[in-house]
């Protein structure tokens, strides 16, 4: 089965549930609803042989509604095909069903998203923070979290301080100019 046949089968099976389809440089992305995630995930693994979950990522579109996006990157070992699933999560709900029983590797990916973005995964067997320590009060990859961090204190566990940025953040700009101009410098956001 080719990748195209795989996508056709997917579209045929879930036609009413697919909210959008984009193709970009040979990569196919389907936008779905968070409610249908588990049905679609099971179908992808069992019927479409998308047996390998490459990655789960999350996006914070701060200021938009719904605020968050979760992206599943799937791969089929037998058919050598990639498929990307996207869904949106609102800030009020901030939760989505876990797929860690479907692809066990989702366990740690979902923990990381919970840790960094504060999205919960219902049905996850062990939803603890994975990078920061239990009890850290913030979700650092949210857009409203300052780059320099926030002060926090957990006696005998860990603490954080506000980092001095000294005029930063230090960013580069896309340009064809020489390395002197490309060099990362403190560039205050242009208003």
């Amino acid at each position, binding site marked *: 089965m080719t990748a195209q046949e795989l996508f056709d089968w997917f579209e045929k099976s879930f036609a009413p549930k697919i909210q959008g389809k984009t193709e970009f440089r040979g990569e196919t992305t389907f936008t779905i609803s968070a409610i249908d995630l588990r049905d679609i995930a099971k179908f992808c693994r069992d019927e479409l042989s998308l047996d390998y979950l490459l990655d789960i990522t999350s996006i914070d579109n701060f200021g938009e509604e719904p605020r968050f996006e979760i992206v599943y990157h799937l791969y089929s070992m037998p058919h050598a095909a990639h498929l990307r699933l996207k869904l949106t999560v609102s800030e009020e709900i901030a939760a989505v069903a876990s797929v860690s029983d479907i692809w066990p590797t989702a366990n740690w990916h979902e923990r990381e998203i919970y840790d960094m973005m504060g999205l919960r995964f219902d049905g996850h067997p062990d939803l603890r923070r994975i990078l920061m320590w239990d009890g850290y009060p913030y979700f650092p990859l949210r857009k409203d979290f300052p780059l320099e961090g926030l002060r926090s204190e957990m006696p005998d566990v860990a603490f*954080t301080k506000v*980092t*001095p*940025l000294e005029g930063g953040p230090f960013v580069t700009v896309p340009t064809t100019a020489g390395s002197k101009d490309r060099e990362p410098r403190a560039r205050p956001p242009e208003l």
Partner: protein
Amino acid sequence: MSAASAGASVNLASRIISTLQLNRLFVIPQEWQQLFETCRKRFDDLFVGSLYFIYVKVWPVFLLRLRNAILVFYYMSETQATSYDSKIEGNIIFTRLDAALNWVRKNSLWPMPMGLACCAIELMATAASRFDIARFGAEVMRFSPRQCDVMIVAGTVTYKMALAVKRIYEQMPEPKWVIAMGACASTGGMYRSYAVLQGIDQLLPVDVYISGCPPRPEALLAGLMKLQEKISRQGAFRDQNPELAEKLEDALA
């Protein structure tokens, strides 16, 4: 000079005690071991561990393990006579006690390898054959803080790891030193971030900072030599163990 009779021994022992001075290196002839035992009873609580003999030409030098340092004694019946005496010339090393302790300490620095990021790779290279940190007596890297003298913080210290590093430092016995290896350990480096401690000196007293990202092994060796220089200038005994120094002075008074 002989210590044949018991009376002479006691007399000599009292003279040894009367001439024992802090900040001096003492050498005692082999046949005076008995006298030395007499002295030992008086300072019994100061002598921890074993007695070592090393032979310098003819006379033995007594090295006493004192806590984690080594005390070297010599005996002279009259201090003035030591200015020149053809019989003992060349057999006695004069030095300050601090200098002797520092000499021992700085040439046997046991590192605690606190490898936290890519700097640890350079730290490993420093210990390997091409650079060979053993040339400076610092090859004994064990992951056991209780036998270590110098903590080499090699890498990015995250806030999650920070208190663990501090705890390991606190498990190290005195005297102890800290080398901040590389930009991250010194200042946080390129990580101006919510997750990274901006320099281990916020938690530990750092003796030597080494620049570089990561520093080359030569830089670490240079840092180690800087630390050796620093140690050789320290008042090892008086500053670091004033109670024991007072006790010894009282015993000698």
